[in-house]
């Protein structure tokens, strides 16, 4: 550990743990709310999942999902909860950049930034 660090690994791990738990609880609650809404308005036979059609564009891209979720489209509300879930580990990595910077561990700031860049790249690319 670098001397003169503002905080240590232990505190760092506890905060990361809390962040992850908060993200998962929020995402799960969101998905559950959307799921109840989805089941209440479902009618008749289940959709056909035997053949792959792919989701429609408005359930594939972040801004479209948000737009549809705001109109309380149940499937989009669930999808938004799943976006929150996917964002949780990404937030953990972003937070780790800050944590390593506070420890003045610049090598790990670089490594963590590389991971974050990869995550953002894969999320934005299609």
């Amino acid at each position, binding site marked *: 550990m670098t001397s003169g660090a503002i905080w240590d690994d232990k505190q760092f791990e506890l905060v990361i743990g809390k962040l992850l738990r908060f993200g998962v609880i929020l995402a799960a609650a969101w998905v559950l709310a959307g799921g109840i809404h989805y*089941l209440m308005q479902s009618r008749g036979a289940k959709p056909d*999942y035997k053949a792959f059609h792919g989701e429609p564009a408005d359930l594939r891209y972040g801004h479209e999902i948000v737009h549809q979720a705001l109109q309380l489209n149940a*499937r989009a509300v669930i999808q938004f909860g799943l976006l929150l879930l996917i964002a949780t580990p990404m937030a953990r990595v972003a937070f780790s950049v800050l944590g390593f910077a506070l420890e003045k561990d610049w090598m790990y700031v670089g490594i963590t930034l590389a991971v974050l860049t990869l995550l953002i790249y894969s999320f934005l690319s299609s």
Partner: protein
Amino acid sequence: MTTFEFTILIAIGSLLAGLLGALTGLGGGVVIVPLLTLAFGVDIRYAIGASLVSVIATSSGAAAAYLKEGYSNIRVGMFLEVATTIGAVTGAYLAVSTPTKAIAIIFGVVLLYSAYSANKPPKDSQTDDPPDRWASLLKLDGEYPTARGEKSYHVRNVPAGFGLMYIAGVLSGLLGIGSGAVKVLAMDQAMRIPFKVSTTTSNFMIGVTAAASAGIYLHRGYIDPGIAMPVMLGVLAGALIGARILPGARVRTLRLVFSIVIAALAVEMILKGVKGMF
């Protein structure tokens, strides 16, 4: 089957998968894809999309508890995540171009390996090899709590571990699983990291690895809310219940039984894949 019945049945199946996965250490993700494809007739692309989402939930949910115990090595985790995220992106792109029957066969082989590795007795992996210069340079050596206080350990074979982690990432992105078995292989066997540190750090890394391919799956339309919702909620609930009852549970027999079930599912996936039924 109505949407309601279908959703409830998938949620119950996922809950059992999450529960057994947590109790046996095999993870719930490994049986979600066989469950959805073999039992519910869901296309394997929707199945791996839903499985991947559940993997993020259980990994992130469990990490909080592990981090508190102080076993995870966050530097090892972060450094190796460079390899797993590159691998995951590679795997997710491969998933799009690989024939589904090939994915089913690879899935079966990885399942067989997971079932086998979960039943190997963990051995003390510390050796007297000279310290690895990469490990010193990257500050990977660490310590972990034992009954007799903090015990320090050295990390070996960093390049080999990094390479195995890339493969773990590819498999995660290709199959929508956490690849915990391959991650533990890389850390425990190749890098000689103590078993408990390997498993908890592996769990910690799984969420980030899965998030790296989730965006690509989402854009390709693999993540269907109607399937991902009951799978994610079911596996998460099962994993949380499993973690609660784990300390008092006798898991050896359970692990053996679950491994046999997994091996049978693996064989069925391989056979159906070979026959082109995916």
